[in-house]
């Protein structure tokens, strides 16, 4: 049953130290505001799960929230490396990061398995690759009907899934559209679900086949305008490509990163204040 909460309340109630946490959104609708709030509340020992870690997990990893990362593509899209992710893997800074590396197809199938209450996913994948050498959870299974050997990988069953969507109605039914990624599967695979939305509306007015998460599968829903920036929300705002490029410089150096997190996340009250501070930072950058 969805409960309307502030984002701070939703994170405090649903994300605990040591939890496995999936925050999904395939380039689109990435729940940045929720990621910031997890950093702000100084959660630790999290096992983070996400197909494309993106800047959101670069921030969480650099801020020391994660002990493990399960992922399938860890870059800054259109720009290059995720420097905090790389520093954690290459130099164990700010702490060692255990990684469980998989492919996109595997992760997508593993979320489907989790949502379907199955223990593992089956796919044609990984044949001839070195993945099984470094991840002993990538195994194989023989089809009982044809004898074909297929890849078998464990289902993803997060303690908490966090997503961002365009709207929810007053009951907490959630509507999202555009590039949907694995959000529905990630939500249905999880024990608890937090959804941030751009706006609360009287009625969703959605078509019968629209992607809707009924309020009774959602634990908490929060209104956070622009909560997916610097990614985008289809129909609301564009991707902030300049921020993705700026992140390359901010994140490259540990001190610069720490100062950025301190100023923009740890000492701001919430995402609205972050946006105000970020606006000031942008203005300063323009003036310099």
């Amino acid at each position, binding site marked *: 049953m969805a409960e309307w909460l502030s984002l701070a309340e939703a994170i405090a109630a649903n994300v605990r130290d040591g939890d496995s946490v999936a925050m999904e959104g395939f380039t689109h609708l990435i729940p940045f505001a929720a990621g910031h709030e997890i950093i702000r509340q100084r959660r630790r020992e999290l096992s983070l799960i996400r197909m494309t870690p993106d800047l959101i997990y670069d921030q969480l990893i650099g801020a020391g929230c994660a002990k493990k990362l399960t992922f399938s593509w860890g*870059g800054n899209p259109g720009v290059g490396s995720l420097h905090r992710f790389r520093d954690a893997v290459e130099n164990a800074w700010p702490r060692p990061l255990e990684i469980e*590396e998989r492919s*996109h197809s595997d992760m997508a199938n593993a979320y489907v398995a989790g949502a379907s209450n199955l223990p593992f996913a089956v796919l044609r994948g990984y044949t001839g690759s070195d993945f099984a050498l470094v991840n002993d959870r990538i195994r194989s299974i023989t089809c009982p009907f044809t004898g074909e050997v297929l890849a078998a990988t464990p289902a993803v069953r997060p303690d908490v899934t966090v997503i961002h969507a365009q709207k929810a109605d007053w009951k907490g039914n959630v509507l999202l559209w555009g590039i949907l990624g694995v959000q529905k599967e990630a939500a249905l695979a999880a024990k608890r679900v937090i959804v941030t939305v751009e706006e609360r509306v009287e009625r969703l007015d959605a078509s019968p086949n629209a992607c809707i998460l009924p309020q009774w599968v959602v634990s908490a829903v929060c209104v956070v305008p622009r909560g997916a920036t610097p990614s985008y929300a289809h129909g609301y705002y564009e991707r902030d490509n300049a921020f993705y490029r700026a992140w390359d410089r901010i994140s490259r150096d540990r001190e610069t990163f720490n100062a950025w997190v301190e100023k923009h996340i740890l000492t701001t009250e919430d995402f609205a204040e972050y946006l105000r501070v970020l606006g000031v930072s942008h203005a300063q950058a323009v003036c310099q």
Partner: protein
Amino acid sequence: MSVDYTPDEMMTVSAARMLRNGAVCFVGIGLPSTAANLARLTHAPDVVLVYESGPIGAKPPVLPLSIGDGNLAETADTVVSTPEIFRYWLQGGRIDVGFLGAAQLDRFANINTTVVGSYQKPKVRLPGAGGAPEISSSAKEVLIVVKQSKKTLVEKLDFVTSVGFLTGGDSREKAGLAGRGPVAVITDLCILRPNEVTRELKVASIHSGVDREMIVANTGWKIQFEENCGETERPRTEELRVLRELKARTAVVHGVSGEAA
């Protein structure tokens, strides 16, 4: 009239030409996306571009900066979920051509996009697999576009992320992979194709202005040349015009040319 062009433009144009009109193409971001969209805007208007984020039949007016840009969704015939893309459309056998990039490539067109150095203590941690392992195995055929140097075309991969012809010969068929594997590797120096029997990549065509010594000096294994190895056709005026206009439009929208990843 002689037309000036860069080695990168030669590579992109050569890669675009490989894509036949009407083909269903699973597109990686970066160089493959540039080449696939150039093909769509020149000789292959009916090519169907599929992106792993879910758009099928995307017709982006400018190059997407990320694999899930809004203009892919807005211009697609349909947008499906990521599990559906991989399960029904790729694994389901609907993809004619997988178009991939690579950080490292070996003589059998196996790809590494995972690490440079050891996995446990990498010298460089690369982004990882994304969709490539299953694209390279399930697409009916694969095109690879990569800038050529001793760092990219290597004797031995540090990690096999996505497979080409494994150890050569019939090892790919024996492994039971669905697709036929790589049919061409397009670089900024030449076009390589796998030998029909050994499956080792050999130089099939050399770009204008490049000589054999340059190719040998920029390959990590002892590269061989096909007997009938000729010169790649230079970019035509029209191809260059469309490519440059596409990049200029992209730069206006994104502030960059859209090919960094």
